[in-house]
């Protein structure tokens, strides 16, 4: 239902003291494409600064894109204006990592949940309290929550409020931007189970942004791995985690700790920090850290190509393999 094509987003960056220096541009998204089917969860993984959150914000036009298209059932979100844009946006909602920062501290929960319905003209003011109660019940919060303020809730409960707010306009797809990263393990599991139930009962599609491969494996059917603004591998979740093909995905998987003392994390598989997006390496962005780097990788950008049904990899190693 959602098709994102060649999405490009650049940010101007001023360097120098007092930001008076010359303007440089950072290519946060360098032509990324992905699709999400109805009811499907797509995981978007990668390390800080790789562009995963930016892709969500750009598709939703929370920041304006610099190129590409985002189609919802064929209608281009980037061309739409006014009422058309509002109608399309209603179908896509977002849940942020830090529920405390994304809830108005001076507003009662009932008002926070009714607000999106007001904005989108859903139902009548008389119907709103009833809908708010239904939403609270759906995310497992008591009805009394209506009269309370965000600070009266724990982190897990606040995330439930964030989810209820996203659901209030009846979206078909949720962008979940690290929705459980700030939570303790036992609370994280509660929220994941809730999201999984909503996925099924509402047939919700989602783009699940996370750096935690375990969480992604639990929640997502398909995964796309990003590195410095590009997608380097996309595959069904099980395949990607059991037999990663791109050297970066392999390193990511090997560095992910699992609660099994017989399989300790492979230490120091990758040397160095990720390169700066301000000054990305030529060719394949991963080449300075790649254990299999070849001459070609430094000059030629590898294309994302299909290597098996449903599996795409952007790596020169795949040629002739």
């Amino acid at each position, binding site marked *: 239902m959602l098709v994102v094509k060649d999405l490009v987003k650049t940010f101007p960056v001023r360097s120098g003291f007092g930001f008076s220096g010359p303007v440089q541009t950072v290519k946060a998204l360098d032509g990324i494409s992905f699709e999400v089917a109805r009811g499907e969860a797509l995981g978007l993984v990668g*390390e*800080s600064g790789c562009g995963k959150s930016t892709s969500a914000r750009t598709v939703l036009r929370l920041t304006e894109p610099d190129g590409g298209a985002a189609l919802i059932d064929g209608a281009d979100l980037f061309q739409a204006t006014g009422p058309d844009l509002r109608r399309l946006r209603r179908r896509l909602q977002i849940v942020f990592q830090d529920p405390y920062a994304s809830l108005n501290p001076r507003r009662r929960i009932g008002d926070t949940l009714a607000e999106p319905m007001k904005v989108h003209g859903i139902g009548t003011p008389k119907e709103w309290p009833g809908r708010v109660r239904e939403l609270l019940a759906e995310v497992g919060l008591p009805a009394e929550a209506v009269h309370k303020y965000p600070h009266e809730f*724990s982190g*897990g409960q606040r995330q439930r409020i964030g989810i209820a707010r996203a659901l209030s306009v009846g979206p078909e797809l949720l962008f979940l931007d690290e929705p459980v990263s700030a939570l*303790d*393990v*036992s*609370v*994280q*599991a*509660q929220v*994941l*189970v809730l999201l*999984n139930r909503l996925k099924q009962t509402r047939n919700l599609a989602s783009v699940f942004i996370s*750096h*935690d*491969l*375990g*969480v*992604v*494996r*639990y*929640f997502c059917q398909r995964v796309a791995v990003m590195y410095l603004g590009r997608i380097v591998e996309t595959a069904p979740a*099980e395949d990607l*985690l059991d037999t990663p093909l791109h050297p970066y995905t392999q*390193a*990511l*998987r*090997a*560095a*992910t*700790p*699992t*609660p*099994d*003392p017989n*399989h*300790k*994390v*492979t*230490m*120091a*598989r*990758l*040397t*160095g*920090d*990720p390169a700066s997006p301000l000054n990305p390496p030529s060719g394949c962005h991963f080449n300075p850290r790649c254990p299999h780097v070849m001459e070609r990788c430094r000059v030629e950008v590898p294309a994302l190509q299909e290597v098996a049904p449903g599996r795409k990899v952007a790596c020169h190693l795949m040629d002739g393999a």
Partner: protein
Amino acid sequence: MTNVVPLKTPPALAVKDLTTGLKIRGIWHQAVRGVSFEVMPRETVALVGESGCGKSLTAMSIMGLLPAKVGKVLSGSVTVDGREVVGLPEREFEGLRGNLVSMIFQEPMTSLNPVLPVGFQIAETLRRHRGLDGAAARAEVLRLMNRVQIPASARRIDDYPHQFSGGMRQRVMIAMAVACRPKVLLADEPTTALDVTIQAQVLNLIAELQAEDGMAVLFITHNLGVVASIASRVVVMYGGDVVETAPVDDFFQRPSHPYSAALLKSVPRADRRPDSLEPIPGQVPTLFQMPDGCRFQSRCAHVMEVCTRRPPLLPGGGRPDHQMRCWLGRPEGGL
């Protein structure tokens, strides 16, 4: 096979019956209750638990860094390299911190001074504890920066913290912590804010330094995956109590306390086909609501009448050095 009886080496860090109080709204609460564990030289012990379980407070008690007036060690003993540190006057404690026992934290940016070059900050420890100054200190700082694998150290020694990435900042913190070859390193979630590939590098660095210097490491974390990778023993805390302590292999094979077992079932794993995740119901009670007796009783699937009495540490798992604080299997409360 020869029958060699290993000589008993004294632990580098020994915590015995440590009880730490926090004063909240004028009332003292036991936020850490009777915690005991030992860390041997070269050993890594993981202190595991969720927010508010008392793991960081335990570390602060060891370091003598409890907030004045609202936090204090109520009873118990902490020995570092054989020296009792509970009740030590602040002046004497300052001679130990950074010297005999060091600590690294989750967010290096908040522990580094943003307006001083990193080289200067690393040198501070050397000036204070080793009396090094000038060129000698600078040479030693460079050696330390190389030791923690900061590339181009000669060029970066006068850079400021904001010019370093998160992983490099944590390396700077580690350089400061190991400058005086401490016997004990307390690491409080040092990799939690880092990306996994950088986390792996930092864990690797700590292990290398430990192998060279023979430090004892107390590694505080909520991440059971990290525990499995680095620790030889696990101490699990809940509500200020040690609820389970075990060698790492036995812990993951036979987690015995209902909390540990439930925690392991609630971690989604990257290495396995997901079975149904089983969250622990409810949330950790606040210090005001903390039940008497077993502190996990309000969320436990196996709760019994006897749980209103605080269980002692009883044998658990499959080995004698595996213990848990739970009445399970002893419904009458008999020992």
